[in-house]
């Protein structure tokens, strides 16, 4: 087993916390890791990244070669672009859809998101909404780890003891809300992944995922959703767009799409 991840974001967004969660879980599982990161100058609001390599065998290079990464996990949608050359043929992108605009030439927001939706392998995750749903706005990075779990060689539940350790000093409430953020994000990631695997176009999958209430995701229904969306993509998109608030993922939603 070998899994290479490029973590991406902007200085101050907490990608080192993501690295901490992954590093410690990997070690706890008896795996080897190498994780290279950027300190110093770049941490002042500049582009930051970390190469994280997990394996059950010896890892040679601290840096991931071009075209070899299994995942780009980004807390910022534009930053994904900076590292696409590292992504392997079957690699995936899991990115937050929340732009961090601290430069004057930041492209229009929609263009940044559309550019990712054009990639067949990119999950665009509303980390802000997921974190807010657990009243834990600072946990967007934890949400991103959660959304990535369906692709990782780990289960969401594996992270629980690491989160408990990391946030222990902040009290039980903080620990619990972070666990909830991670679990919610994980089921969103699973559901989204199943839709893409089922052949649903990314912009349609994203539109649907964005409209479903955090906490109500039922990944086991993904198959049925994928079929419904694939059958009538245009009609479904229209139906989803006509919803004026987030809805729970229930039979009713599936029936609505089927009859769109």
């Amino acid at each position, binding site marked *: 087993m070998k899994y290479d991840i490029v973590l991406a974001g*902007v*200085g*101050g967004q907490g990608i080192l916390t993501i*690295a901490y969660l992954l*590093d*410690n879980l990997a*070690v706890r599982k008896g795996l*080897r*890791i*190498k*994780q*290279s*990161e*950027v*300190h*110093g*100058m*770049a*941490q*002042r*609001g*500049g*582009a930051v990244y970390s*190469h994280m390599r997990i394996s059950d065998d*010896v*890892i*040679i*290079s*601290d*840096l*991931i*070669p*071009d*075209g*070899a990464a299994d995942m780009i996990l980004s807390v910022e949608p*534009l*930053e994904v*672009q*900076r590292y*696409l*050359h590292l*992504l*392997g*043929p079957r*690699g995936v992108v899991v990115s937050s859809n929340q732009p961090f605009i*601290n*430069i004057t*030439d*930041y*492209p229009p927001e929609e*263009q*940044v998101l559309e*550019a*990712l939706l*054009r*990639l067949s392998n990119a999950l665009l995750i509303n980390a802000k909404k997921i974190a807010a749903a657990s009243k834990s706005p600072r946990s967007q990075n934890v949400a991103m780890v959660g959304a990535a779990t369906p692709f990782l060689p780990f289960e969401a539940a594996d992270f629980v003891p690491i989160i408990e350790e990391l946030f222990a000093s902040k009290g039980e409430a903080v620990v619990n809300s972070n666990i909830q953020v991670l679990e919610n994000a994980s089921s969103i990631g699973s559901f989204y992944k199943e839709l893409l695997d089922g052949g649903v176009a990314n912009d349609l999958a994203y539109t649907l995922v964005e409209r479903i209430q955090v906490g109500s995701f039922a990944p086991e229904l993904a198959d049925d959703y994928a079929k419904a969306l694939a059958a009538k993509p245009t009609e479904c998109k229209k139906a989803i767009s006509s919803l004026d608030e987030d809805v729970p993922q229930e039979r009713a939603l599936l029936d609505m799409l089927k009859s769109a």
Partner: protein
Amino acid sequence: MDKRELLLGDEAVALAALHAGISGAYAYPGTPSTELFEFIERKQEEYGVHALWSANEKVAYEEALGMSYAGKRVIVSMKHVGLNVAADPFMNSGVTGVNGGMVVCVADDPGMHSSQNEQDSRFFAKFCLIPCLEPATQQEAYDMTHRAFELSERFGLPIMLRLVTRLAHSRSDVATLTGRSQNPINKVPRGGQFTLLPSNARVQYERLTRVQTELQAESEKSPCNELVLGSGKSSLGVITSGIAHNYFMEAVGGEPPMPYLQVGQYPIPAAKVRDLVDSVDEILVIEEGYPLIEEALGGLVGVSGKKVRGKLDGSLPRTGELDPAIVAKVMGRQTEQVWKRTIEPLPGRPPALCPGCPHTDTFKALNEAVAGYEQPTITSDIGCYTLGFYPPLNAIETCVDMGASISMASGAAHAGLWPVLCALGDSTFAHSGMTGLLGAAREDVDMTVMILDNGTVAMTGTQKTLATGEELERIVTGLGVDPGHLRVITPLSRHHDENVAIIKEEIEHRGLSVIIARRACIQIKKR
């Protein structure tokens, strides 16, 4: 081997130093070396070691030398350019030698992630005639640190341990040993060893040159220098060093089909190099930093009948750092870029001052104060405030080496430029600004020095600064600055007009003025 720990390269060295029984650690912060000292600082009580930041690298080096003089083991760490500052004691400590084991860990920054240059510290080790160890992995960083202390006490010399950014700041699991206790006090007996009067220095230097054959022999048999000749004939042989070895191994899938030599201990193991050269027609040298091995190998006239490839013949880039893609390419195994950007051109995201940073308000006031002058000169220095170079502030015009802002401003004023101002941080001032200001005060140079006192060493991660607040004011007047021309301002937008007026007044004072712009870095406030 009793335990596995997850450690940065810097931390692996730090933990090994603690396990090797150091009694003290000395350092001045500097990326990518900072985390080494910080690790020891966090564990100082547990291990009973002395660990306080020093004023600069020269001071740190001398403090370390003093601890070694007493017979104790000690580590001193710094970034590559820090060794320039410590070069005087460093070069002379080769001559004096050391008593308790002393390791100098220098972290180079190829690619200049956070530095003014990418100088290669291995040249300094060679210059000083001392051994240098260069690990490729976190495990080697740990193991070689133990080895360095042992070598240091065996040969009575300081030993350099060279890291580079990608190892210093990369984390991996490391198997560790149980610790050894600290050395007892065992001072150098009185005599000439540490008193480098010419008569003593000649004796000591003679000793240093004599020990070179032993150091060479030590390199030849060192397990850190691994020669693998293999069985079959090969036209190509490879020499790697440090972290470049990993990129080489990655490129060949962990099983090199050609003979190779991995260098991890200097002086370069000449006999092993010769064995490799004899068995191939062409030698490729892959090393991170300057082409030190390549130059030594090719010399002035090359190796007769053999081709030497590397950074000098353009096979590898001369500047910047190596990476797996560059090394794969030179090995003829192109890596593949599969995915293309879907946004072109991609805007850069350079580092910037934090929103609400006190330096921004200082520079805004400074910019307005000098706006009316035809040719203002604003020298500066190294720290977060150097980011004031970028638009929209465009506030400063120089950054050379720590403390240079004051001395360069003096020289510019001597030359006849006016008005001349300079801007530097409180830690930079304590590091190397004070001596420049002392000189400027003696001749009342017509310039305005702005010390940006944010109460911390911000750029490297908010370490403790040695001169801030009222203490800083006392230092400034103590150096001879007229208290009437020492002004303190609070860089906040609501004080903007007042601050502009003060800066203008001091520019118009035709002599030396110091303005301290005092407001805490928001990153320390956050904690």
